[in-house]
């Protein structure tokens, strides 16, 4: 049902104050899963991902009036979700005065005790390897490897040059490959 309307049509419908819940609801249904998994791969915990996703959509609701219809809605939504995720992770570090290395260690130990992960040993090893990457590099890796985004789209979302993204991704896959080969 959500796929019946294009983003442009939904944005046009949203402009009318009397009936904006229907188009907004449709936009949420259309994009919620991709945004959820983008967030979840960074924070790991479902409840955290749920909070961040809700905040993302609330910000979307507030900002849609000023959104330019000729811009790419999906890219804009992704950008909000990414910024909300980074804000959440930074707040988590500051709240408990956690140094960066301990924040990574905390995420890794949260992952170890996470019963919602159903993968086999090698998949678990892959996730642990991903967690050792610096935050932004982890974002780049997830977006390229799991979400198969183009570098040009990633560049718009992360406000980073294509060259820097390629370098970051190449570095990430080399590190992960090394970790996977370790016993």
């Amino acid at each position, binding site marked *: 049902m959500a796929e019946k309307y294009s983003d442009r049509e939904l944005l046009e419908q949203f402009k009318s104050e009397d009936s904006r819940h229907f188009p907004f609801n449709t936009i949420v249904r259309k994009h919620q899963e991709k945004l959820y998994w983008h967030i979840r791969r960074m924070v790991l915990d479902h409840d955290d991902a749920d909070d961040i996703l*809700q905040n993302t959509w609330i910000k979307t609701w507030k900002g849609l009036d000023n959104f330019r219809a000729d811009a790419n809605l999906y890219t804009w939504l992704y950008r909000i979700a990414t910024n909300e995720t980074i804000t959440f992770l930074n707040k988590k570090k500051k709240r408990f005065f956690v140094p960066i290395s301990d924040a990574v260690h905390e995420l890794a130990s949260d992952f170890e005790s996470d019963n919602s*992960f159903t993968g086999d040993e090698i998949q678990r090893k892959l996730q642990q390897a991903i967690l050792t990457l610096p935050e932004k590099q982890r974002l780049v890796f997830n977006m390229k490897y799991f979400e*198969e985004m183009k570098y040009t789209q990633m560049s718009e979302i992360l406000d980073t040059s294509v060259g*820097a993204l390629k*370098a970051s991704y190449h570095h990430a896959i080399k590190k*992960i490959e090394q970790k996977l080969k370790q016993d």
Partner: protein
Amino acid sequence: MNKQNEISDLEELKKMAPTLSSLKKENHFSVPSNYFDEFPMKVKSKIDAEENASSSFSFAWLFNYKVLTPIAVCAIIILGTLLLNNPAENLTLEELTAYEIEQSLEYYGYPSVDDGFLAVLYSEDNNDSEDQEELSEEEIVNYLLEEEVDVSQLYYEL
């Protein structure tokens, strides 16, 4: 063209990370059942709750210039009074002249300094750099990538 790009990405991955490229890209995180069906309603409830809360009580009146101006003036007067009444407490050691320091020492007496403490201060072995953590090459590279430094330019300059 898209297909070609996909193939080149796969080829690149196989070349650089054969183990990683052999793994299936599967999602192994579970989600509560009906989560995505119920999520839009959850968001709508939260939006409605926020909009109702903001319409019933507003702090907008506080940002009226007729309210802000007298508050700002009072704050400046209070702050200025506090600062003017305690000039001496704001003095730092750097602001004292050598003469004032000498006078103070003569009046209060020169403090005794432990010889051992002086020896530590002037010791050749007092090397601060031992306390500094050395960065690994990996940490340096990660920092450069995070800050989007052009590594090839650096190499050229060095």
